[in-house]
């Protein structure tokens, strides 16, 4: 979420994390761990 840009809906975790990884260059393992750590 940010002030500018286009809101996109992802239907599952893999779709989301693959997208973020492609956009930011962060590897998926790190993103997956972050996701696990933060989600309730």
């Amino acid at each position: 979420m940010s002030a500018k840009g286009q809101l996109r809906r992802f239907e599952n975790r893999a779709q989301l994390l693959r997208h973020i990884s492609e956009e930011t260059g962060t590897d998926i393992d790190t993103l997956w761990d972050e996701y696990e750590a933060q989600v309730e």
Partner: protein
Amino acid sequence: MGDSTDLDLSFAIDAETVSLSPIGEYQVLDLEGPVVIVGDASYRVVPVGEESDLSEDVRELSVDEIRAALSELADNDDFQSIVDNCPTNTPLVYDDIDYLTRHLPTASLQKCGELSESTPFEKELLLQVAYVERQNSLVGHSDNVLEYYLEQRAEIAEKLRSTDEIDSDVERSFFSYLLLASALIEELTTETVLNELFREEGRLDSITEHVRSMGHAKRLEKLCGGGDHGSLVEVKKRRNNLVHDAQKRAGLDELESRREVAQILEKTDRCASVLLTISGKNIESVIAKRGCDPYIEHAQSEAVADTITTWEQEYPERLSRLHDCEQAALEKIRWDTEESDPGNNITEGFTFEGFDNEVLYEILMEFVGDASKAFLDRIDADANESNLDRFDFAVMVLLCAGHSYGDIARWLDTDEKYVQRKENVIAWRASEFEKGLVEEIPRPEDPTWPSDTESDD
């Protein structure tokens, strides 16, 4: 009146394939910027077009701000009225805030300004959060009703099958079913008419108010374009009769046999199914089975990549056994989508000749099972992403596969003329995104005159 014959009920809505995304609780995560999670789905703002360098300065809204806005605004009436006037998607080439500030009625934008002054939230944040809420309620609200509807349908069907006569238990169950069917039809009608008006640039000051003030029959008439909507109105009439007249309710308005109740049950389900299709909520399985080759290739390849990503984290050992198998080329696995069981219809990515490892076969079947679910998720995501609405997206992918107007009309519960008209609409509205998915948008080549014997409706 006793009747012990077996009842063979057949429903139009397939509870197994309909995808349900009921409204969920929000969670806001920080994954290289804020991400809002709702159930299995998630929302994130991505840079528009190719301008990826934007991402440095667009992450200015913090996770905490979004969390606070979502929890504080949930019961705010002014915020809700902004949500109600938000469209359900925006064109891909536009920045959302640019689009929303042009799209929303002046009154909503004024409310947004006032709300920003009375809360710690910037106007842009309020609009973004309203848009997330609109998307969530779009996908989720009628799905909640649909979930209850399917449960109640299963209950009344079971009661009808297991009893010989119409007793008070069947009456109660049927009445509950009818209430839910009527609620579902009304919910889907309102949502679809709203979407149509938003997308057709209806020159109305407050679209939501206008649609809510219409009667149900008027909404249906608008939706069905003056076509035959009598059976849909009939559901509401039947529901009203039973609600307002206790005597009729007790006797189910003169439905005397199990067969008669079953017929009304099937007919009502067909009505709900038509609206479900018009709203585009159950298009995934039609596209999966009948979509054009380039689209199926795209969606399956993305689904396989999504599944590999998930298995790398959740089942690394099993995945590595598949990777180690000489007969498998996992990334290339594809399956025949016209068959119901993808596991038995792998067409690429695995060589079965001389393969007799039962354990590995089980793992492969699990992998393909997961990939086929991810395949439906990908279709769902593409339909949401498209500049076309979900129904038109389905029409486009089916037209690109070369199916006849008649077949497409049958699969999508509509008529041939409507499909032809939509072909024209798609030619105007398809964006680069859709063109990239199907390679070439449908191209009508011949004029379509009505035959002498056919009346033009």
